[in-house]
């Protein structure tokens, strides 16, 4: 037992176990909030792979999420394929979309890359409204099938999904590719001088990020039963993802998931404040950025490094 408590992996496993046991303790409502926060956790982790590791500020995670979500939703409504097939197709389309966006966009630096990804979101948003016939326009679209109607089942699916994605993304970040990405993010010239094709790795990172974002977007649609601009594309979601990642600690993969959970749960816990809960959550996030720029997990890790 003592050994488990000493290793970070042990802690994570314990936390996951505790989280998995929650349905026996808390109400369906809290499970619902957590379920959503887990999907947001995946969004934030996928974003961190791109920003924290490859060093690219992507303002368009919801372009990828939205592609996945709407593809899955539309396929479900029109083709009536099984949910998993729809979700996988959504992830695939998101990856292709990511590739199309990344190949030219990665030539650009700094604010330009950010702007192109931002514009991608705005264009997708316009496209959804223009093609309201298939997409339902700005009021969104109900999908025919959902994962489950049982809150606990949904919760476990969400938790499991986040755990699996987290493990894959974290593993990837610690793998050879992750190291190379990190090196290219820090100093692209030096990474190239070590013999690494920086562009190839960044495109790959974009695709992986798109894959997970798209898949999580599709899963979220099949959890909520609706896809709308508001829930999967709007810039407010982008903001939330970026804040979650920075809050939790960029460059840590797991930190952003923690940040996302805190952000969603915090917003919900402050719901009694009514309108002002967003205000308070933003203010807290701003304070964290100002005073602990490494984020929560980053702060802990950095202290570890100093020792």
């Amino acid at each position: 037992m003592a050994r488990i408590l000493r290793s970070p992996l042990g802690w994570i496993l314990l936390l996951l176990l505790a989280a998995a046991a929650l349905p026996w303790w808390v109400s369906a409502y809290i499970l619902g909030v957590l379920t959503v926060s887990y999907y947001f956790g995946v969004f934030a982790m996928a974003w961190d792979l791109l920003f924290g590791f490859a060093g690219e500020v992507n303002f368009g995670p919801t372009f990828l999420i939205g592609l996945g979500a709407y593809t899955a939703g539309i396929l479900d409504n029109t083709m009536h394929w099984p949910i998993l097939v729809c979700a996988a197709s959504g992830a695939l389309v998101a990856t292709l979309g990511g590739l199309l966006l990344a190949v030219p966009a990665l030539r650009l630096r700094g604010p330009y890359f950010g702007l192109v990804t931002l514009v991608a979101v705005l264009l997708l948003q316009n496209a959804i409204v223009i093609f309201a016939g298939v997409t339902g326009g700005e009021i969104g679209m109900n999908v025919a099938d959902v994962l489950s109607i049982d809150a606990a089942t949904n919760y476990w699916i969400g938790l499991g999904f986040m755990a699996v994605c987290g493990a894959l993304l974290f593993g990837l970040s610690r793998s050879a590719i992750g190291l190379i990405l990190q090196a290219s993010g820090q100093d692209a010239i030096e990474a190239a001088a070590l013999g690494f094709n920086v562009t190839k790795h960044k495109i790959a990172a974009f695709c992986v990020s798109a894959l997970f974002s798209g898949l999580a977007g599709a899963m979220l649609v099949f959890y909520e039963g609706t896809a709308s601009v508001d829930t999967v594309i709007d810039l407010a979601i982008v903001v939330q993802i970026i804040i979650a990642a920075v809050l939790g600690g960029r460059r840590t993969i797991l930190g952003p998931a923690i940040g996302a959970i805190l952000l969603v749960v915090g917003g919900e816990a402050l719901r009694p404040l009514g309108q002002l809960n967003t205000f308070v959550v933003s203010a807290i996030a701003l304070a964290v950025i100002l005073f602990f720029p490494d984020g929560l997990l980053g702060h802990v890790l950095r202290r570890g490094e100093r020792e």
Partner: protein
Amino acid sequence: MLALQILIDGFAISALYALGAVGFTLLFGVSGVLNLSHGAIVVVAALIGWAAASILGTYLGNLVGVLAALAAAYATYFAVVRPIQRSPAIPREETEIFVLTGTLLWSIMIQVGAAWWFTDNPVTIRPLIAGVVNIVGVRTPANEVMIAVLCWVVIGLLWLLVNRTRAGRALLAAAINPRGLVLLGFELDSIYLLVWTIYGVLAGIAGVLLASFLGVGTNNIGQLTASAFSIVVMGGLGSVSGSLVAAFVVGYLETLTAYLVAPTLRPVPALLLLVLVVYVRPQGLLGRR
């Protein structure tokens, strides 16, 4: 006739876009800050101006609105941007993303706060001049003419300030080489304060004019920021004349689309053009590499 209509209608909206974007680009050029709370500051001017106008009358109300934007700009600088720039814990190469995130959060706080206080209904400030005038057969609101003129007067004043005054020269010099300016005994802090002041006033004027021309509410904040950002990038980050050109390109493109294609597609061609410009000429229309 249609061409004339497009010409006249596009002009006012373009001038307004230009006014909104000039401050944004000046701020970036001089201090390297991309202020994503831009839309929020513009809307603060509109809302406070509207509220004040009902008590103090239109002229004083507009003035209060501009002052409110100035205060909001100072708050952005002192409470968000400067602490981030000075934080020893933030690595230099990441200052940019932190400023972006910080101003974005700040923008949300303003938006939610303003919606809580004023509701999210758009508001309009009474036009300074009522009525319409006939310009070569096109019925145009006098207010629209006045706004176009006012925008250009303000832009002209800005040009005079930058090119004809000592403080303005220093501002321009800071955009080119801040270190050189320090060596000449200029405090960068006061230069930055000056540019934030100019920015605040410009955003404020844009805000009250927008409220008097089209009407504006907290729901427009994101769109306002995004449009300023895209115009500025299209024109070339930091290039004031580039922003003016880009503002007119976007303004006319939107008006043309609304007239000749379909009002539903209004924003789309400008977005596509922006993507094209960024890919083909990332430094923007008039930007230098």
